[in-house]
C-alpha cells in the first residue's frame, strides 16, 4: 500500500488494520542470480537499484541479524558532500542528490533534513584547509559557503564565542544542503521498496563461508543453508575484513569502534550540524529532541559493538567546551559501531580478485551519507561487471599504484583518518 496522508487518514478510520507488511519474511531459495551480503543501508540500496535500474529479478539480501542493525542503525546520520578530493566530492554529491528525492522515490519518509553542516575552523591553517575544501566543492558544483566568526555567531549562537574557548572559532565551512536523516527509516524504506520489487530479504541468516571454484564464487554457506548464485556483493561494513578473509582475501581494511551517544530529549535548541574537528566532536539534534553526538575512533582494532568510558568522557569534554549548553543535559545512552577503516580513509567499491565477488566497504566514519549513491554505483558494478564512472577511483588497486584518495593526508594507519 502506498503511503500518503490519505492512506493514513483512511487507516485512521479503520483502526490501522489495513496496512500491508513492510517486507516479507521469505525462506531462502536454493539459488539467486545475485546475493548481497549485509542488509544495512548499502546492501538494501544495492538490491533496490539492481531491481529498479537494472531489472535484475533474482536477488537476495542476507543479513546475519536484523536488517538495519549494523552501522546504519547506529550512526549519527550526517549527510553531506563536503569533500576535498574531486573523486570523493563528486561521488558524495551524486549521493546527496539522490537523498534529495529519496523519500518520494521510496515512498517512505526518511526525514532528510537539510539543516546545513558546518565544519569549524580555528587557527589560520584550518581556515586555509577548509577554504581549499570549500573551493573544491564549488568547482564541482557543490554548495559551500564560508562563514566568518561573526557569521558563525549568527548562524550557531549556541557555541562558545567567549574568552573561555580553548580553540576560539575563526570561521566555518557551511554546506547548506547537508543535514541529517532518520537512519532506521533509510534501511526500512529501502527494504520495503526492494521487497516490493521482489527482492528476498533474509534476516537471521549469517554467511559463514564462500564456495569458490576455479577462481569464481559459486555460492555461499549460511546459517540457513547453502545458497548458490552467480554473483555476490559484500556490503557488510565493519565485517568486510572478516568476510573477505573467509573468501581468502586480505584487504587494506581494519575494523575499529566508533562511538556515539544521545541525550535525553529536549525542545529544539540546536538547528544545524556542527563538527568541531580540533576537538574530535560533532553534534546535531534528532527530531525526537535528543542531542546526538560523537567523536573519534577508539584507536585500536575492535569488533566490540559497544562503547567505553574514556572516549565518552573525552567526547563530553569536547562537547561542553564548544557547546556549553550541553553540560546540564543528561546523557541517555551510548553505544558503538564497527567501522570498516581503509588505509586512506576512502571507500572501496569494486570487483575483487575472486570472480563474481564484488566488494563495497571501507566506509570509515562516513558511509551513511553514501547509502543511496553507494547502492546506485554498486548495483551498476554488479549488474554490468564494470564500475560506474563514479566508483572507478574506488579500487583496491589504488593502494598498490599509489593513487590514494587521502583527504586528510594521514598515513597508512586507519586511526588517523
Amino acid at each position, binding site marked *: 500500500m502506498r503511503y500518503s496522508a490519505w492512506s*493514513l487518514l483512511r*487507516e*485512521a478510520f479503520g483502526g490501522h488494520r489495513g*496496512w500491508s*507488511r513492510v517486507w516479507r*519474511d521469505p525462506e531462502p531459495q536454493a539459488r539467486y542470480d545475485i546475493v548481497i551480503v549485509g542488509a544495512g543501508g548499502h546492501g538494501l540500496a544495492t538490491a533496490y537499484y539492481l531491481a529498479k535500474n537494472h531489472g535484475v529479478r533474482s536477488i537476495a539480501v542476507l543479513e546475519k541479524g*536484523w536488517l538495519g*542493525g549494523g552501522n546504519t542503525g547506529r550512526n549519527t546520520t550526517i549527510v553531506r558532500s563536503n569533500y576535498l578530493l*574531486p573523486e570523493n566530492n563528486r561521488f558524495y554529491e551524486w549521493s546527496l542528490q539522490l537523498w534529495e528525492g529519496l523519500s*518520494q522515490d521510496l515512498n*517512505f*519518509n526518511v526525514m532528510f*533534513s537539510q539543516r546545513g553542516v558546518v565544519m569549524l575552523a*580555528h*587557527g589560520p591553517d584550518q*581556515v*586555509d584547509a577548509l*577554504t*581549499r575544501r*570549500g*573551493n573544491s566543492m*564549488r*568547482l564541482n*558544483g557543490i554548495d*559551500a*559557503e564560508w562563514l566568518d566568526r561573526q557569521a558563525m555567531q549568527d548562524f550557531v549562537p549556541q557555541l562558545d564565542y*567567549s574568552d573561555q*574557548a*580553548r580553540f576560539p572559532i575563526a570561521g566555518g565551512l557551511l554546506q547548506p544542503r547537508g543535514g541529517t536523516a532518520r537512519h532506521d527509516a533509510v534501511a*526500512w524504506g529501502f527494504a520495503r521498496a526492494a521487497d516490493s520489487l521482489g527482492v528476498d530479504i533474509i534476516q537471521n541468516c549469517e554467511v559463514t563461508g564462500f564456495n569458490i571454484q576455479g577462481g569464481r564464487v559459486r555460492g555461499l554457506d549460511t546459517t540457513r543453508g547453502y545458497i548458490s548464485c552467480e554473483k555476490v556483493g559484500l556490503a557488510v561494513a565493519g565485517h568486510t575484513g572478516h568476510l573477505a578473509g573467509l573468501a581468502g582475501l586480505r584487504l587494506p581494511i581494519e575494523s575499529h569502534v566508533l562511538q556515539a551517544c544521545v*541525550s535525553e*530529549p529536549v*525542545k529544539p*535548541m540546536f538547528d544545524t550540524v556542527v563538527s568541531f574537528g580540533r*576537538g574530535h566532536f560533532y553534534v546535531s539534534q534528532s*527530531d*525526537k*529532541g535528543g542531542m546526538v553526538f560523537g567523536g573519534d575512533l577508539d584507536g585500536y582494532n575492535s569488533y566490540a559493538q559497544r*562503547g567505553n*568510558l574514556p572516549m565518552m*568522557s573525552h567526547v563530553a*569534554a569536547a562537547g*561542553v*567546551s564548544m*557547546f556549553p549548553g*550541553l*553540560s*546540564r*543535559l*543528561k*546523557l541517555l*545512552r*551510548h*553505544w558503538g559501531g564497527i567501522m570498516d577503516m581503509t588505509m586512506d580513509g576512502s571507500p572501496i567499491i569494486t570487483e575483487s580478485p575472486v570472480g563474481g565477488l564484488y566488494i563495497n566497504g571501507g566506509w570509515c566514519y562516513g558511509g551513511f551519507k553514501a547509502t543511496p549513491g553507494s547502492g546506485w554505483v554498486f548495483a551498476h558494478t554488479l549488474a554490468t561487471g564494470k564500475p560506474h564512472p563514479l566508483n572507478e577511483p574506488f579500487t583496491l588497486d589504488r593502494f598498490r*599504484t*599509489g593513487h*590514494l584518495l*587521502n583527504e586528510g593526508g594521514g*598515513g*597508512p594507519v586507519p586511526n588517523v583518518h
Partner: protein
Amino acid sequence: MSNRLADGGLIDRGRRLRFRFDGRGYEGFQGDTLASALLANGARLVGRSFKYHRPRGVFAAGVEEPNALVTLLGQGRREPNARATTTELYDGLVAESQNRWPALSVDLMAVNGLLAPLLPAGFYYKTLFGGPGWRFFEPWVRRAAGLGKGSTAPDLDRYDHKYAHCEVLVVGAGPAGLAAALQAADGGERVMLVEQEPRVGGSLLWDRRTLDGRDGPAWAEAQAQALAAMDNVTLLRRTSAFGYYDDNLVALVERRTDHLAAAPAFTTRQRVWWVRAKRVVLATGAIEQPLLFPDNDRPGVMLAGAARAYLNRWAVKLGSRAVVYTNNDTAYACALDLAAAGIEVAALVDLRPAPDGPWPARLAEAGIALLAGHRLVGCRGGQSVHGVEAAPVNGGAAKPLGCDLVAVSGGWAPAVHLHAQAGGRLGYDEALGAYRPGPVRQAHESVGAATGMFELGQITGATVDDGDASPVGPGVEPAPGKVFVDLADDVTAADVELAQREGYRSVEHLKRYTTLGMGADQGKTSNLAGQSLSAKARAESNAAVGYPSFRPPYAPVTIGALAGADVGLRFVPQRRTALDDWHRRHGAIFVDAGHWRRPRAYLRNGETLEDAYVREAAHVRQSVGIADISTLGKIDIQGPDSLELLQRVYVNDFASLKVGRARYGLMLREDGLAGDDGTTARLGEHHYLMTTTTGHAEHTLSRLEYHLAVDWPELRCVVTSVTEQWAAIAVAGPSSRDLLREVLDGVDLDDVPFLAVADVTLDGVACRLFRISYSGELAYELHLPAGFAEAAWTRLLSAGDGLGVAPYGMEAMGALRIEKGHVTHAEMNGQTGAADLGLGRMAKAAKPHVGRAMSQRPALTDAERPALIGLVPTDGTTDFKGGMHLLREADVTPAPSLPVDSLGHVTSWSYSPALGMPIALALLNGGLAANDGATVYAHDPMGGRVVRARVVSPHFYDPKGERQRG
C-alpha cells in the same frame, strides 16, 4: 501539606522546606523528594506526556519514573528532565512542568490526543514528505517533540572525576547489598558500597519488615554504621553505578551538592568515579512492573511498591479510596498498608483465579475485598483518576470501582542492567515474567532481588518476620482501549501490535519503530510489557522475542559530569615555552601549534596583524630579529649505531656529516610520502641532536622508538627527547653575528660557518649555537637550558638595542620562509612526496630508508603530480589566499561549466617585504618543470575572487643562498 499522614515516615518534620512548582509555593519536609512533597500537597498532575500531551502524575518512586520529569531552575541554572522522584527537596527549590502550552492544567497541545488516530507508531514515516515536504513539516514535528527546554548558557557548576580501586564493589545498599558488603569487609579487603539513594536500606525503607528485631530502616542504618566504622570500607550515598565496562571498570556518578540549597565552596556538583574492582557484587534489587489496562496512564495510577514508599517512607496520604491491582503477592502488603494509613481500599483485584498462601487471609482479616480472577478493563478520570472497572478475566460484566488511587503490581523484574552491560547473559523466567542474570563474562555476581530472590532472611542471614511475598504471577491480556505500554514515550499496545502486523518483528525493530523503551527511563517499566505483547501477537515465547541491548548509562548522567573538570580553557592543556610569559607581556597574539601556543606577531600600537608581520619580517631582512623556536622537537640520539639509525630514517645521507656540523634531513613515512623534516647535528662521534617540526615531534620520537624496539632491535642506540630541556632562539638577519658577538663567549663567530655547531656560553651558561637559517639570512639558532631562556632573550634584546633588534613571530617567520620557498606542514600535508616538494634530489642517495620502496609507486613518480611552485600576481599587487585553487583561464569565466578541474592550490601566501608584493607557494600539476612562466588563475570561489598569477620558482629570495652563507 494537606495529604501528609499525621505521623510516620523517614522525614524530618522539624525541618520545613519551601519550594515552588509552576510558580506556586509549597512546603515539604527534609527527607522528601520533589515527588513526595508534591503528592503530600495534593499536587497530582506533574507533567504532560511526550506525544499526546496527556495529563500525567507520579508513577514510581525512583529512577524508573517515566512521567514525573520537571525542569529545575534557580540561581542561573536550568536543568530539564529532572526526575521529581529522585530530586531531593531543599529549601528554595524551584521547578516547572514541561511539554505543555500554555500551562500544565490547560495544555492546548493536548489536541494531539484527539488526533491520536492519525498518529500511530511511525506515522511520520508514512506521510509529511509529500506536498510542501519534510522541510516544511519538520520544524513542527521538532517543536512538538522533546521534553524540557535546555539552556545554552554556560554551566555555573563544576564537575570532577576520581579513580578508585577496590577488591569488592557492591552496587546497591538494600538488604542484599548491605549483607554482601559486611561479609566482604570482614576479610579486610577494600570494599566500596554505593547506593543511588540518599539513604541505605533499599526496599526496607518502605517494605515494613523486621530484621533481628529491628524495623527495616533501623536495621539498615545499623549495618551502614558497622560498615562506616571499618577503615577498609567506603560507603557512598547518592551515588549510582551507571556503566559497567571492560576489565571490571564500573562508572559511578556521585551527586554531591544537588540536594543542598547552597553548595559548599570548592565542591563540585557531581563526580564521576572510575572504579576498578577485582570483583563486583550487583545488589541492585528489582524494578516493579505494571499491569496494562485501558487508560492506565491517569494521574493516580502508580506502582504498588511506589505507593507503599509514599505511604511508609514519606508519610503521604495518597488518596482517600484505592484499588490495588496485582498478579502477585507483593501488592497485598500495599493494600494492608493503605488501609493501615486510613485509606479505604475498594478492592484488591487479583488476576489469579485463586490466590493462595498467607496473603489473602491477611487481606480478609483487614476487611479488604478481594476480587480474584479479575482484571481492570477501564479507568476513568481526567487530571486525576476517578475510578476503574474490574471484570472477570474469563469475561463477564465489568464492575465500576470508585477510587482516586490505583496501585498496580505486575511483578518485579530484577535490575539486570549492569549485569548485561558487563557482557553477562540473561535468561527469561516464565514464572517471574522477567529476565534473571545468567552466565557472566567478567568477575561479578548478582545477589538478592537482582536475581529474583525475594526471601529476606536468606538474603541477609537475619532473623526476619513472616513478611516475605513472592513476586511470581501470570501475565495479562489488556482489555481493548487506549492502553499505554511506555508512558515515557507514549507507546500504546496498539502501536506494538501495529508494528507486529506491519512486519517490524525483531525486538530491535519493535523498539525503533514504536520508540518503546527509548525514553528517558529507557523502558524500565515498559520493555517487558511491550515484549510480552509482541510475543502474544506472534504466538511465541518472550524468550524468542528477546530484548534490545542494555547500554550505559543505567540512568541518565549529566553530560558535564562525564566531561569532568578539564573543560573550557582546560579542555586541552596549554603547553608553554619558557618565553611564554614574556611574549604575553609584550603584546603577542598567539596561535596554536600542537598543544603549544606560539606568538603569531607582536602588535604594537594600533598595528594590524599584517602591519606587524611585515614590519617584523622586514626587520629580519634589514637588521636582526629574534624568535622563540623552542617548540621544535629535539631528540638526543646516542650509541654506536646512531648513524645507522639516521641513515635508515632519513632519505638523505648522513654518513658524511662531520662532528660539529648540521644537515637538513627529510623523513618519509612507510607509504613513501613526506613525514617530517628538520636539521640534525652531529655533536660527537656517536652523538646526534635531531630536530623535528613542532607538530610531528611526538610522533617522530615515537616512530624512532618503534623502529628501535620492533624493526631494528639490533641497533645499539637510544633516543631521548630533550625538547623541554632546551629552549631555542632564532637570531636572524644581517646583524645577527654582531648581536651574538655581544653576548656569547667561548667562540669566535667567524669560525662558525654555515651549518656548523659550536659550544658557547652566555653569561656563563653553557649553550649550543647552530648556524642554521630558516629565513635565508645570516642566522643562528641558540639552544640553551630552558630556565635561562628569558634572561638570555632579554639580554639579546638589550645588547641588540643599537642594532635595532626586535622579536618576530610565526607570521613573519612564515613570510620569510615563503620567500625562501621552504616547506612546512601546509605543503608537507601528507599528500606530497619528496619530489613534489622540490626535495627529490635528497632522496637520490643510494641507500635503503623508510618509505623508499613505496615512494617508487607509479602514482608517486608521475611527472604530472602536483609539485611545489611559486606564484606572483601578474598585477604585482593582488593578495592571494590560502586554499585558492589554480585554474585555467577558460575555467574562470563568469559562468564556467562545472565541474571544473582544479590544477592545484595555494598552500601558503604572504606579503613579501623583500619583493614588495604578495607571493604564494602552491602545488600545481606538473610543477615548475611543466609550468615555469605560465599564467594560472588562483580562484577562491567562496570568496568570489580570482588572482591572475605567474608561475615562478618557489625560491623567491636569494635563490643561491648567498645571504645565509655570508
